[in-house]
């Protein structure tokens, strides 16, 4: 019997098979058990049937029986090498394990048997864009378009593939050919509108600004995202030097949102005032008149009141600042200081701001009035002046004075939580992390329902190396209570980084690596997460956003969270290389430093007690959890396995720490080459690898560039 004959099913079984495959009835509705049953019923009669074996494998894969799944699919391929279904399923298995390279190979095999299979082509192109195999991606997109040129997604998909590969001319040609196929373009639907805006983006990236503008203006009636249209038009007019039109456009935008700083910047540039002019304090008269007029038109806008502080100098600045701060001081807006913080780059302005605020404080103390006011102010105004001045002197590096002022404010009204946070920040800036954490904890306890305060306090605890209380506090606001995995699942990176850095300071390299490499995993996941958007964005035609996503993912390792984590990871590995024994070394406890033996014993005894109590409590909790497991909601959930290396001991026992360090260093060099720390750390690593010449060359090269 030839193999092809065994692979043909009689009518009845073929119908059953269809329920598994073609309609994917059981697969899509996740009725895996029924799917298995159906497959088994066929295999009973025809145990050699490859495609059924493959489908059984796929179903098993969904039921988390990985090894069996692979076994069945490989067996299926042995029985029927020629079936595209078997190859496709094999690819799906690899894809579910994120092994995209193998998956691509399988899909290509499947396509050799069935070259026009749309489903396989679509799956393949997802993998190709995910792995940025752009040449293959373009080809697959071309095939999809050739198979079904009536489908809009196939056209834009083809255009996007060229765009992603940097071939703007082709992208544009494809879009134009697509437009040529449209018969009726008078309907302004969202998808078409996005396509038009996307085309404008391609044109603009090509540098053909005139054409872009013409295209936009011609398409205006069909564009539904009017705000994007206006913004883009204003930007183009400005770039093309059509300043009067640009000004009119920016004024229109300001009438829609007078607090958008981009619009203000555009308006000023259209009038010939670049950033330098604004910051340099020249041409103040003209700027003043523009803003006087604007403030009449938009009396409620805060930006219009704030921006003149950037360009005014001397007495004008003083007058303006003095009236600008009044409503903030009266209303009690603690963010006033961060609002005006950019002005602190100008020493003369700092002087003036200090003068204004000190005078306000003096007058409030003596007459309870702000400078230049006749009415008595509510008793709370002086509080915010004190808070402002505390921040002011903190910014100037005068911690004693800042503390004195914030203490006065706290004496005056000790119930204001923001004041405690300010005090904590002053301590932090002064380098006293212990006191900063104490103060932050006071703030947290005053409002236990406030997640922000909780987060701040945890951060300050970690800066003060109080890791145990931090662990207890951070879980107060996480879903599963004290389950530490929860923070990993939520990709809570600020916590992992601060915790890791704290461990690094305490030379607990295993624990540090555990938390810090978790950050690396999150970034892998973030890259992974773009997968769904390849289909979604094309279907919804959100092409501009899609291109932004692709570019964002390509440069994701630039993100400060990754860079911070990577710096510390490299430091960990360097330390492990320098002193391999430190992988096992216990904690050098900062609390125990410099204490007498008796005191140390006392503290240790206390800790043991606390630990015993904590263990008892957690045992109780576990018992409670057991009770929970019976609830119906938990049924479908797969129970997560316990982490085999919770404290990162294995991570610290790495054989070649420098190799691990090099891995991170090379990512840093690619994505964070603008930071001097990258090159200093690279140097540290290479020096230990005794590649002195490379060290020298790289160091010279990079520092010269910086």
């Amino acid at each position, binding site marked *: 019997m030839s193999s092809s004959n065994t692979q043909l099913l009689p009518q009845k079984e073929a119908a059953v098979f269809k329920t598994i495959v073609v309609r994917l009835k059981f697969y899509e509705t996740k009725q895996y058990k029924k799917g298995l049953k159906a497959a088994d019923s066929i295999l009973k009669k025809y145990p050699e049937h490859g495609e059924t074996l493959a489908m059984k494998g796929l179903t098993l894969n969904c039921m988390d029986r990985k090894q069996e799944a692979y076994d069945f699919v490989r067996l299926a391929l042995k029985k029927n090498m020629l079936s595209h279904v078997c190859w496709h399923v094999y690819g799906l298995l690899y894809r579910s394990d994120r092994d995209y390279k193998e998956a691509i190979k399988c899909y290509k095999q499947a396509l050799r048997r069935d070259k026009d299979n749309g489903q396989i082509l679509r799956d393949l192109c997802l993998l190709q864009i995910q792995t940025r195999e752009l040449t293959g991606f373009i080809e697959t997109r071309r095939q999809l378009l050739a198979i079904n040129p009536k489908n809009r997604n196939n056209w834009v998909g083809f255009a996007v593939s060229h765009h992603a590969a940097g071939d703007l001319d082709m992208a544009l040609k494809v879009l134009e050919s697509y437009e040529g196929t449209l018969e009726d373009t008078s309907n302004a639907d969202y998808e078409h509108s996005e396509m038009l805006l996307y085309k404008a983006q391609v044109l603009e990236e090509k540098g053909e600004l005139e054409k872009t503008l013409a295209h936009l203006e011609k398409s205006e009636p069909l564009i539904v995202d009017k705000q994007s249209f206006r913004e883009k038009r204003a930007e183009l007019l400005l770039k093309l030097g059509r300043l009067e039109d640009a000004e009119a456009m920016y004024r229109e935008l300001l009438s829609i949102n007078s607090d958008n700083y981009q619009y203000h910047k555009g308006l000023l540039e259209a009038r010939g005032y670049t950033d330098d002019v604004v910051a340099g304090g020249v041409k103040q008269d003209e700027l003043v008149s523009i803003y006087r007029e604007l403030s009449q038109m938009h009396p409620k806008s805060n930006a219009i009141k704030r921006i003149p502080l950037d360009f005014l100098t001397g007495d004008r600045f003083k007058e303006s600042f003095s009236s600008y701060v009044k409503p903030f001081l009266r209303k009690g807006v603690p963010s006033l200081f961060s609002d005006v913080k950019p002005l602190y780059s100008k020493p003369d302005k700092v002087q003036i701001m200090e003068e204004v605020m000190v005078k306000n404080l003096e007058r409030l103390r003596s007459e*309870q009035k702000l400078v230049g006011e006749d009415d008595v*102010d*509510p008793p*709370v105004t002086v509080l915010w002046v004190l808070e402002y001045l505390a921040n002011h002197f903190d910014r100037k590096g005068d911690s004693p004075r800042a503390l004195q002022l914030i203490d006065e404010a706290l004496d005056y009204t*000790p119930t204001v939580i923001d004041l405690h946070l300010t005090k904590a920040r002053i301590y932090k800036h002064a380098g006293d992390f212990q006191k900063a954490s104490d103060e932050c904890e006071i703030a947290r306890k005053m409002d236990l329902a406030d997640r922000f305060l909780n987060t701040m306090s945890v951060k300050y605890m970690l800066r003060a190396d109080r890791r145990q209380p931090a662990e207890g506090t951070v879980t107060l606001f996480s879903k599963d209570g004290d389950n530490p995995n929860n923070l990993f699942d939520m990709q809570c990176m600020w916590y992992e980084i601060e915790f890791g850095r704290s461990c690094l300071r305490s030379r607990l390299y295993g624990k540090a690596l555990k938390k810090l490499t978790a950050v690396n995993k999150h970034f892998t996941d973030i890259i992974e997460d773009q997968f769904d958007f390849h289909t979604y964005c094309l279907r919804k035609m959100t092409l501009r956003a899609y291109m932004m996503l692709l570019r964002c993912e390509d440069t994701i390792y630039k993100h400060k969270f990754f860079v911070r984590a990577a710096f510390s990871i490299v430091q960990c590995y360097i330390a492990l290389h320098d002193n391999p024994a430190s992988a096992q070394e216990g904690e050098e406890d900062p609390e125990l430093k410099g204490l007498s033996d008796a005191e140390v014993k006392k503290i240790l005894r206390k800790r043991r007690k606390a630990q015993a109590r904590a263990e008892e409590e957690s045992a109780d909790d576990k018992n409670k959890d057991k009770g929970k497991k019976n609830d119906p909601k938990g049924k479908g959930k797969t129970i997560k396995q316990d982490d085999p290396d919770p404290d990162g001991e294995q991570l610290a026992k790495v054989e070649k720490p420098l190799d691990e360090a090099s891995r991170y260093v090379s990512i840093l060099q690619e994505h964070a080459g603008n930071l001097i720390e990258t090159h200093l750390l690279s140097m540290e690593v290479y020096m230990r690898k005794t590649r002195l010449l490379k060290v020298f060359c790289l160091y010279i090269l990079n520092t010269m560039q910086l």
Partner: protein
Amino acid sequence: MQFDELAEDYDAIINPMQPVEQRYKKKLPVCFGPITDKNVEQVKTLNRSIFPVKYNDKFYNDVQNSGNYTQLAYYSTDILVGAICCRVEKKEDASRLYIMTIGVLAPYRCCGVGTSLLEMCLNLAAEDADIDEAYLHVQTSNTDAINFYKRFGFEVKDKILNYYKRIDPPDCFVLSKQFTRRSQ
């Protein structure tokens, strides 16, 4: 049970820190909120700064169980400036409301905050069918405080000798306000 800490409660309303003519004379707009297990620490901070004694945990437990009778006064929606702390004493047929403290932070006094707090509390009590009386203790020498409470319908009901341990005179009046029920 001794309540010598309560000697200070009315001081909070009456002693201004600055000369009156320089002060903000308008009524300070405040809004009210309940005490919860989340913000109890804020109330402790408030009371610590107003009264020279530290109240124990029982005090704050009673206060949290007093329903709406304990009220916090916030200026500009989130600055806690004053509080009235009460305890509901259950008897067989009806309950009594015991006012333990009324306190306003020094800078915010003389602006009607204490009055608003007491009014709020008494209005609630008047609508509550279970409560037939509100009462409190006040040092016999503190005429200002006694007059303050009389404005709200409180009357001297009793005098307890040697009620306070550490202040002179050690005697106090019991001030009481009865609620008459329309239904009765």
